[in-house]
C-alpha cells in the first residue's frame, strides 16, 4: 500500500474539538493582515474612476501631493511598468483606459491613513467618456459562448434529442428564473501590507491561498516565485473573493515600490469592495423539463446567461449541476455571456451550483406540482443509478437519505400539498424542499512537511489557509490521527509561503487536498523512522493523484427544507425554520463543520430574501454599495437552523473519507425558501430576492401556460 492509500483511523477526527485559534481570536491577539507589526508603516488610499468607460485625458495630482504627510501619488503616468499585463484585471495603472466605474486610476501614499484618504479625494481626473453598457439583459443579440466555463467545464453539453423529448413529454415546465448580482462581503475587507526589501516583496495579505498569491504576483513584477513572500495566518472570511488576486494587492505592491523598506498598509473601504473585489454575476436561466405522468424526467434543458467584464472573462458555470443531478435520457445545457462595462465577476460561495440549483430546484418544485406529486417523492423518483453525464458510478450518493431525514426533521407530513391552504394567526404558512450538491474536487499540488521534535511532538507545516473556517483545528486533527498521537502533540504551521506549497482554499477542497498531503507526509515519516523518530527527523508528503477520480463521480449531497410564514396582507416573509441534512463523507470536526453549514444556509437565506446589488444603468455602478443598503440577513431574520448529517462512508475520495463542506450549505437554500413561499402563498417567485411586493402577486398567476399537462 502506498502512503496515499488506506484510510486514516479516526480518533481526533470526528470529535468536536474547540477551535485551537479560538482564544487568540476572542482575545484579539490573532493578527490579521492589517495588524501585522511592520515598523513604521505608511498608508495607501485608492483613487477610483468616476466614469464607466473611457480614457483618462488629464489627471491633476498637485493638490494631493501638497497635503502634509503625502509621500507619493500614483497614476498610470508614473506607476511602475508591470512585466506581465496579460491579466487585465491585475494590469493596474498600465494605461489610460477605463473599463468600469470604480476601477483604480491612482493611489496616494501618506504617513497617515487620514492624509492618504483626504489627498486621494483631491486628485482631479478628466476623461474622454465613451457610452457604457452595464446592465445584464438576456435579450441582447451579442451574447457569446465562452470556450469553457469556470472550473474548466464544457460550455455546452447535449445528450439525446431534447426537443423531441420535450415535444412528446406528458408534462413540461418551461420557465425563466433569475438570480441577483451578489457581493461576497466578508467581514474583513481585502487587505494588503506590502514591503520591498532588497528587491524582494513581502505581502501580508488577507487571502485564501498564500502560494496562489505568490505565483500570480511574482510574474507581474518580474520576480521569481521565491522572491515573493506571502503571510496570512488569519483571514476574516473570503467566500471566494480572496481566492484569486484582485487589483488591490497589485496597487499596494506598486505603492510599496515607491517607498522601499517601508511597509504600505492598504485596506479597501466597504464601498470599494463593491468595485474591485469580485462578485457573483446575476444569472438568467431558461429551464425546460419534460416528464412522464409519474414525474420521471425525460428531458432537462438549461440555458444560462450571465455577465462578464470587457477586460477579463469569467464564466459562471451555472448549468453544470443540471448535468449530473437527476436521471433523464435527453438533456442539454448551454452557457452564454454578455460582455459588459462592469467590474470583473469572480467566485462567490459555490459559484455555478448556488445560482444554478436555485433555478433547477424551483423548476423541480413546479414539476412536482404539475404532476401532483410530493416534491420529495419527485426527487427520489429521479435518482440516477450512475452519473448521467459520465456514466460513472457515484463514489457515494446519499441524497435520498438526506431527503428522508430532512422530511422527518421538519415534519413534512404536515405539509399541505395544495398551496395557500395553511393559515396561522394571519400568516400563510408553507414548507418547501430543495436538494443540494457540491462536487468533491481533487486539487493536486499541495505538500506538507512533518518534523519530529523532542518529547514526541511534531511540527506539521503546509502553506494552507484558514478563512475562519477551522483549518487550524481540523488539519491538526488529521495530522494527529495520521501520526497516531494526541492533537496536543501536533503544532500546525499554515498561512505562509515559508511553508510547503498548498492549493487555494477554493472549491471546498482545502481540507481534502491539504489533509491528504499531511497524511502522506505523516505516513512517510513513520515508514522511514518508525514510531520514535529522532529529534529533527522530517518527511514531506504530497496530495498526489487519486486514480479513483477517474473511476467515480464524486459529490457531496444534501437536502434543505424551509418553513416560511408570509403575512397575508403585507407580504412580509419570515423563515422561522431551516433544516439542512447533508451527506458529506467523514466530518472531521462536527463543531466547526456545523458552523460552516449553518453559515452557508444563513447566506442562502440572505440570498433568498435580501441580497441584491442594484446596478444604476446611467452611472454603470452598484447603487447600494454599502452594508446600509446592501442588505444581508440580520440576526432577527434568522430563526432556527437545524443542521445535521448522515453517516457516510466513502472509501474513494481521500484517506480521511471527507468531502468539502464550505459551500454546499448555500446550495439549494434559496430554492427551499422560494418553494416554501409558494406552498404558503400560491405565488411562484422565480426572481431573487423574494421581496414583499413579489409575494403579493396574483396567486397562481405564475402557473399559467408555461406548465403543460397532457
Amino acid at each position, binding site marked *: 500500500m502506498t502512503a496515499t492509500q488506506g484510510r486514516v483511523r479516526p480518533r481526533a477526527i470526528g470529535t468536536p474539538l474547540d477551535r485551537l485559534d479560538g482564544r487568540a481570536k476572542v482575545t484579539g491577539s490573532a493578527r490579521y493582515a492589517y495588524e501585522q507589526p511592520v515598523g513604521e508603516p505608511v498608508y495607501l488610499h485608492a483613487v477610483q474612476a468616476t466614469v464607466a468607460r473611457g480614457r483618462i485625458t488629464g489627471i491633476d495630482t498637485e493638490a494631493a501631493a501638497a497635503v502634509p504627510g503625502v509621500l507619493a501619488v500614483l497614476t498610470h503616468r508614473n506607476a511602475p511598468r508591470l512585466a506581465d499585463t496579460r491579466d487585465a484585471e491585475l494590469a493596474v495603472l498600465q494605461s489610460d483606459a477605463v473599463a468600469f466605474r470604480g476601477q483604480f486610476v491612482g493611489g496616494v501614499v501618506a504617513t497617515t491613513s487620514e492624509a492618504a484618504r483626504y489627498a486621494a479625494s483631491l486628485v482631479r481626473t478628466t476623461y474622454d467618456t465613451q457610452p457604457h453598457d452595464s446592465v445584464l439583459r438576456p435579450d441582447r443579440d451579442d451574447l457569446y459562448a465562452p470556450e469553457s466555463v469556470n472550473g474548466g467545464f464544457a460550455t455546452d453539453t447535449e445528450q439525446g434529442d431534447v426537443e423531441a423529448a420535450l415535444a412528446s413529454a406528458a408534462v413540461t415546465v418551461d420557465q425563466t428564473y433569475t438570480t441577483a448580482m451578489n457581493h461576497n462581503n466578508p467581514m474583513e475587507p481585502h487587505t494588503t501590507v506590502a514591503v520591498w526589501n532588497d528587491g524582494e516583496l513581502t505581502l501580508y495579505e488577507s487571502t485564501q491561498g498564500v502560494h496562489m498569491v505568490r505565483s500570480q504576483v511574482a510574474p507581474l513584477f518580474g520576480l521569481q516565485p521565491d522572491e515573493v513572500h506571502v503571510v496570512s495566518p488569519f483571514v476574516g472570511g473570503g467566500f471566494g473573493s480572496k481566492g484569486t488576486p484582485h487589483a488591490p494587492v497589485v496597487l499596494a505592491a506598486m505603492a510599496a515600490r515607491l517607498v522601499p523598506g517601508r511597509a504600505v498598509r492598504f485596506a479597501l473601504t466597504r464601498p470599494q469592495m463593491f468595485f474591485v473585489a469580485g462578485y457573483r454575476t446575476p444569472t438568467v436561466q431558461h429551464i425546460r423539463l419534460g416528464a412522464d405522468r409519474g414525474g420521471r424526467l425525460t428531458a432537462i434543458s438549461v440555458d444560462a446567461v450571465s455577465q462578464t467584464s470587457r477586460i477579463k472573462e469569467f464564466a459562471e458555470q451555472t448549468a453544470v449541476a443540471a448535468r449530473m443531478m437527476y436521471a433523464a435520457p435527453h438533456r442539454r445545457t448551454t452557457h452564454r455571456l454578455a460582455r459588459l462595462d462592469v467590474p470583473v465577476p469572480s467566485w462567490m460561495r459555490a459559484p455555478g451550483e448556488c445560482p444554478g440549483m436555485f433555478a433547477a430546484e424551483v423548476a423541480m418544485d413546479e414539476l412536482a406540482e404539475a404532476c401532483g406529486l410530493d416534491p420529495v417523492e419527485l426527487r427520489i423518483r429521479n435518482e440516477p443509478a450512475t452519473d448521467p453525464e459520465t456514466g460513472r458510478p457515484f463514489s457515494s450518493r446519499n441524497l435520498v437519505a438526506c431527503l428522508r431525514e430532512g422530511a422527518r426533521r421538519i415534519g413534512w407530513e404536515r405539509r399541505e400539498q395544495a398551496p395557500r391552504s395553511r393559515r396561522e394567526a394571519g400568516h400563510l404558512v408553507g414548507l418547501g424542499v430543495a436538494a443540494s450538491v457540491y462536487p468533491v474536487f481533487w486539487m493536486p499540488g499541495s505538500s506538507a512537511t512533518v518534523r519530529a521534535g523532542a518529547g514526541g511532538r511534531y511540527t506539521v507545516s503546509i502553506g494552507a489557509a484558514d478563512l475562519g473556517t477551522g483549518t487550524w483545528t481540523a488539519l491538526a486533527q488529521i495530522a494527529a490521527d495520521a501520526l497516531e498521537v494526541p492533537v496536543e502533540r501536533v503544532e500546525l504551521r499554515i498561512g505562509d509561503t515559508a511553508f510547503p506549497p498548498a492549493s487555494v482554499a477554493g472549491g471546498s477542497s482545502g481540507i481534502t487536498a491539504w489533509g491528504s498531503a499531511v497524511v502522506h507526509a505523516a505516513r512517510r515519516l513513520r515508514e522511514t523512522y518508525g514510531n520514535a523518530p529522532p529529534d529533527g527527523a522530517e518527511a514531506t508528503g504530497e496530495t498526489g493523484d487519486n486514480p479513483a477520480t477517474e473511476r467515480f463521480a464524486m459529490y457531496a449531497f444534501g437536502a434543505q427544507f424551509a418553513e416560511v410564514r408570509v403575512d397575508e*396582507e*403585507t*407580504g*412580509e416573509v*419570515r423563515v422561522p425554520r431551516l433544516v439542512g441534512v447533508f451527506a458529506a463523507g467523514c466530518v472531521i470536526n462536527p463543531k466547526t463543520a456545523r458552523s460552516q453549514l449553518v453559515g452557508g444556509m444563513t447566506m442562502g437565506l440572505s440570498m433568498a*430574501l*435580501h441580497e441584491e446589488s*442594484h446596478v444604476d444603468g446611467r452611472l454603470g455602478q452598484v*447603487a*447600494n454599495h*454599502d452594508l*446600509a*443598503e446592501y*442588505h444581508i*440577513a*440580520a*440576526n*432577527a*431574520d434568522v430563526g432556527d437552523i437545524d443542521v445535521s448529517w448522515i453517516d457516510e462512508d466513502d472509501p474513494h475520495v481521500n484517506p480521511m473519507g471527507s468531502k468539502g463542506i464550505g459551500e454546499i450549505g448555500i446550495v439549494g437554500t434559496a430554492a427551499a425558501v422560494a418553494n416554501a413561499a409558494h406552498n404558503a402563498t400560491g405565488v411562484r417567485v422565480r426572481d431573487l430576492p423574494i*421581496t*414583499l*411586493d413579489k409575494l*403579493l402577486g396574483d396567486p397562481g398567476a405564475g402557473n399559467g401556460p408555461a406548465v403543460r399537462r397532457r
Partner: protein
Amino acid sequence: MEFLRPATWQEALAAKAEHPTAVPIAGGTDVMVEINFDHRRPDHLLDLNRIAELEEWETGEDTVRLGASVPYSRIMAGLRTELPGLALASHTVASPQIRNRGGVGGNLGTASPAGDAHPALLAGGGAVEAESVRGSRLIPIDDFYTGVKRNALAPDELIRAVHLKKATGPQQFSKVGTRNAMVIAVCAFGIALHPDTRTVRTGIGSAAPTPIRAKAAEEFLAAAMDEAGLWDSGKPVPPAVAKQFADLVSGAANPIDDVRGTATYRRHALGVMARRTLGWTWQQYRDHQGSKSCA
C-alpha cells in the same frame, strides 16, 4: 472640521449662535452615517453628549417633557404607559446598540421621512421645544416638518426637548421593512386614540416627502365614530368604516418607487397597517371600557 464640546446647555446655545451651520450630534446614528458617506462635511460638529439634562425627562400633569437625547432604549423601558406609541416605535429602531445611542432629538433634527419616531409623535401630539440664545419656543409637531429632511428650526436653535401629550387612550405603531432589523422602513404608521377629545390622530412615515398625518382619515373616523356613538357604546368599528379609514390613509400618502418598495406597495401596506392598528387600539379601548364598568 471643528469639534465643539460644550459642557453646559448655555454653552451649547452660545456655540450654535456663533456657528449657525454647526451640526449638532448626540447619538450620532444619523450624522455619523452622513459623514462616513461624505454626504456632508460640516465646518463644525456640536457635540451635545456632555449635557446631562438632555438625557432626562419630566412627567407633568398632562405631558411628558422628553429630553432630546433620552435614548430609545430608556423610552422603551420607562415610558410605555405615558407614551405607548413612541415606546412601540422605539422598539423597531435599528438594533440594541443604536437604541442605546439614538434619541428623538436626532430624529427631529434630521427630519427624514423614514425616522421611526415621527409617526408616533404626530399621532400622540405635542410640540418641539426649540431654544436659542434669543429664548425658547414651542413648535407644534404638526408645523415642525417643512420639507424633505428640513424642519422649522432657526439656524441658531437647538432642540431641548419634546413636550408630548400623555396618552389618554391606546396607541399603536406598525412598520414594514425589507428585513427584520437594521432596516429603513418601507413605510410606517402610527395611531393614537384620544378619548378625552374623542379624536383619533395618525402619523405616516416613509410614504411622503415629510412625515405626515392622514387628516382626512382622522376626520372621517372621528365623525363616523361620533355618529355611531362608539366612544360610549364601545361597540366594534364597522368594517366599512375601518376600510374607508384605511383607504383614506392610503390616499393621504404620496410615496415614491425606490429599491425598498414601490409606491403601489407602500399605499397598499399603509392601508393594511391603518386597518390593523385601528383594530388593535379599538380592542384595547373596549377592553379598558369593559374593565372600568366591571369595577
